[in-house]
């Protein structure tokens, strides 16, 4: 994939210190287009669409919102802690959208494995297929999310 003007603008805003302290790339030095390509391919290989992953992240995360920071058991499978922080953060892509600085920590009660992601993370995965660069504060590989959130491939019609 080529770095379009839109991707160039987004990548600029994803740098550390622009809209978030550590940025969205972590240790990944590839350009945004290459990261998107690789993550899209990973989803295809795993048989789960990135929209499906984001939908589960949202469903399970939001189910824990009633705890106001205390752990909430969701579906008997996960312990979810929702931390709603002051303020909103915009999406780095050049389109409207600001997201509450909410952080979800989801622990799989069976395996003990956990993932941590933000409201903006959910949006970026759902809308842009972007899981962030490895090492970024809210980065989770598609395979990790699929494991922890126990996401099965959607049945084809």
């Amino acid at each position, binding site marked *: 994939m*080529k770095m*379009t*003007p839109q991707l160039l603008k987004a990548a600029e805003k994803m*740098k*550390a*210190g*622009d*809209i*978030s*302290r*550590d*940025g969205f790339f972590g240790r990944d030095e590839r350009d945004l287009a290459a990261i998107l390509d690789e993550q899209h391919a990973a989803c295809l290989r795993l048989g789960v669409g990135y929209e499906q992953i984001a939908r589960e992240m949202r469903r399970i995360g939001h189910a824990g*919102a*009633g*705890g*106001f*920071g*205390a*752990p909430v058991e969701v579906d008997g499978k996960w312990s979810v802690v*929702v*931390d*709603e*922080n*002051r*303020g*909103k953060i*915009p999406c780095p892509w050049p*389109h*409207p*959208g*600001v997201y*509450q*600085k909410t*952080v979800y920590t989801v622990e799989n009660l069976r395996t003990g494995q956990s993932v941590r992601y*933000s409201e903006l993370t959910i949006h970026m995965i759902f809308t842009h297929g972007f899981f962030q660069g490895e090492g970024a*504060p*809210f980065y989770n590989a598609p395979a990790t999310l699929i494991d922890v959130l126990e996401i099965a491939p959607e049945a084809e019609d």
Partner: protein
Amino acid sequence: MIEVLVSMGVIGGIGAILAVVLELADRYIANYGECKIDINDGTRTLTVEGGGSLLGSLVAEGIFIPSACGGRGSCGYCKVKIAEGGGPVLPTETSWLTPQEQKNDMRLSCQVKIREDLKIHIPPELFLIKEYRGRVARITTLTHDIKEVRIKLLEPAAIEFQTGQYMQLTVPEYGDVEESVYRAYSLSSPSFEKDEVEFIIRLVPEGICTTWVHQFLKEGDEVTVNGPHGEFFLRDSDKPAIMIAGGSGLAPFKGMLRDLARQHSTRQVTFFFGAVSQRDLYHRELMAELEKELPNFKFVPALSKPAEEDRWQGETGLITDVVGRLGENIAGSQAYLCGSPGMIDACIAVLTKNGMPQAEIFYDKFS
């Protein structure tokens, strides 16, 4: 197929180059001269150098339009009404303006470039907002993720505000943060303290400002704040007041309660403070002192998940459950809420279910 892609690439490239040339020409060649900004039908008239953003020009003249992103067009807060001279609404603005706002000539002041004389309308209270230079007098660690910052005002040396309002703290460039930004925080100091302001600031993961406050800011540092902003303050009333907060939401109530203590108030006030475990509680000694000073004040901390070592004897459960136990006794009271949007929405639902009219509920959402 390759030819089509190459053609698209060439056209896109030419377009991008032209855009850059136009931007550079506008920045370095265009001369708009002096322009006049008429504010609120002649209430104030500014003469500014054309070519700058409306937001930047207003700030340079000491008129602080609320903005959280420092003029990058990414927060949508800096709306003003432009009656004349604003030019067409830009694509960077449309996403932040409702059709009704666009119809009413509302614009994002950070995106409007001053090219000719302008007529604008802003809320009159914005004239009262000033920028203050101050020095950090004290930083106190309140919990594992909350600090209290007290700032001695230097220039101007005193401030007028209503207890419960908020100010914007300017974050300078630091580390990878290459542009200054500002963020809003509730004042935790009372209005009778005119030469100092105080904030209670919780560390937000990845937060540019809170990281600066928690890891970089030191006592003795010079800082800039602007304000006051907001309409969250204790209404003058004899009705019993129910205060509800979580986390750094305690801030405005600390100021309000100190105000009431100074006035020797006999108003009935109950302050419910929700936390997960004991390590999230703070200012308990201050609240105990206030309970002694205010005959009808009660502080009710509630833990939703007390740790075993807490040996907690107080209220347990979600703050909504604790408030809900008051039942319909709250019908004649007022409520003041400060905290996360989820907590506030849930509390409003409980309060209205128990008979409190919406008009008696005042809140400051962390949003």
